[in-house]
C-alpha cells in the first residue's frame, strides 16, 4: 500500500499556528525539567543534558530515578526501555524520508513524538517538516530548560502545557484516520494503552507503543 502524497487538512501542519503552541508547550515542560533537575544535577549539567539528550520522557525518567537513588544501571535500563518507542516512531516515518543518508543522520536527532506526528500528517514533506518542527522543538526545550534552571519557571503554566500534549496527540491521530478501519484501530490503540497502564504498572511509555502495534497488527485488512 502506498501512502497518499498528501492528506486532507494537513496544509497547516508546519505553519506558525501549529508550531508555536507546540513549541510553547515544549518550552514550558523544559522549564519544569530545568527547575526539577537543577537541584540534582546542578546548573551546567542540567543544561548540558537538555542540549545533548533532547527528550523530555528520557530526561524526566532519568532525573526521577536519580532523585530516587536508583543506580546507574537501573537508570540506563529504564532509558533503554523508554527509547524502544523510537523504533516504532522511526519505522513509521522512515518510508517517507527521501533525503540522503547524511540528511537522515541529521533529522534523526529531531525524532520525537510531536515532530514525527507532524511529519506523518503530510508525508510528501516529511523531511522538511521533521527538520523545521524539530528545530523549533529543540530550541524551545533548551531555552525552556535554561529558564527553569534560572528560577524563572512559570509553574502556573504547567497545567496548560500538560493539557496541550493530549490535545496534540488527539489532533495527530485524527489526521491519520482515513476510513472506518483506521478509526477502529485508533480506538483500539487507545483502549489497549489504557488497559496496559492499568494492568502493568511499569509499562510507562511502552504502553502506547505496544497498544499501537497490537492495534495495527490485528487491524490488518480492515480498511
Amino acid at each position, binding site marked *: 500500500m502506498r501512502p497518499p502524497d498528501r492528506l486532507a487538512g494537513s496544509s497547516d501542519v508546519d505553519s506558525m499556528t501549529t508550531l508555536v503552541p507546540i513549541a510553547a508547550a515544549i518550552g514550558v515542560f523544559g522549564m519544569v525539567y530545568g527547575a526539577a533537575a537543577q537541584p540534582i544535577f546542578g546548573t551546567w549539567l542540567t543544561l548540558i543534558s537538555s542540549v545533548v539528550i533532547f527528550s523530555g520522557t528520557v530526561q524526566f525518567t532519568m532525573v526521577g530515578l536519580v532523585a530516587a537513588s536508583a543506580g546507574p544501571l537501573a537508570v540506563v535500563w529504564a532509558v533503554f526501555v523508554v527509547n524502544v518507542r523510537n523504533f516504532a516512531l522511526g*519505522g513509521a516515518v522512515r518510508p517517507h524520508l527521501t533525503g540522503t543518508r547524511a540528511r537522515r543522520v541529521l533529522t534523526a536527532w529531531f525524532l520525537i513524538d510531536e515532530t514525527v506526528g507532524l511529519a506523518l500528517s503530510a508525508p510528501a514533506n516529511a523531511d522538511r517538516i521533521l527538520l523545521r518542527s524539530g528545530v523549533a522543538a529543540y530550541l524551545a526545550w533548551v531555552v525552556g530548560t535554561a529558564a527553569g534552571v534560572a528560577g524563572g519557571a512559570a509553574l502556573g503554566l504547567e497545567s496548560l502545557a500538560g493539557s496541550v500534549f493530549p490535545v496534540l496527540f488527539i489532533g495527530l*491521530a485524527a489526521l491519520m484516520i482515513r476510513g472506518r478501519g483506521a478509526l477502529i484501530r485508533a480506538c483500539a490503540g487507545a483502549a489497549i494503552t489504557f488497559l496496559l497502564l492499568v494492568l502493568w504498572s511499569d509499562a510507562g511509555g511502552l504502553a502506547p507503543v505496544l497498544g*499501537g502495534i497490537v492495534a495495527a497488527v490485528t487491524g490488518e485488512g480492515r480498511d
Partner: protein
Amino acid sequence: MTDLGLVAVIAVITYASRAAAVVLLPAARGRLLEFVARLPAPLFAGLAVFALIGDDLSVPDGATLAAVGAALIVTPKRSLGLTLAAGISGFVLFELLV
C-alpha cells in the same frame, strides 16, 4: 559512574535508537510498509491516553478534560491547528468560568 558520564551514556543511547530507526535500518516494504502505514493512528491515540493519565493513572483536572473535550469536537475537521486552538480555548474557558 559520574552524573556527567550517566548523561553522556543516556545521550548516546537516545540518539542511537533514533538513528537506528531512520538511518541504519532499511526502509519498510510490502507487508511491513502496510503495517507502518496502519501504525500512526492507534499509536497517537495511545499517546493521547498516556499524555492524559500518565503511568500513575492520575485523573485529569477539569481544565484538561475541557481541553480534550473541545479538541475531540473538532476532530472531524482534521485540522491540527484547529484542534490545538479548540483545546487551548477549552482550557482557557474552563479556567475563566469555573
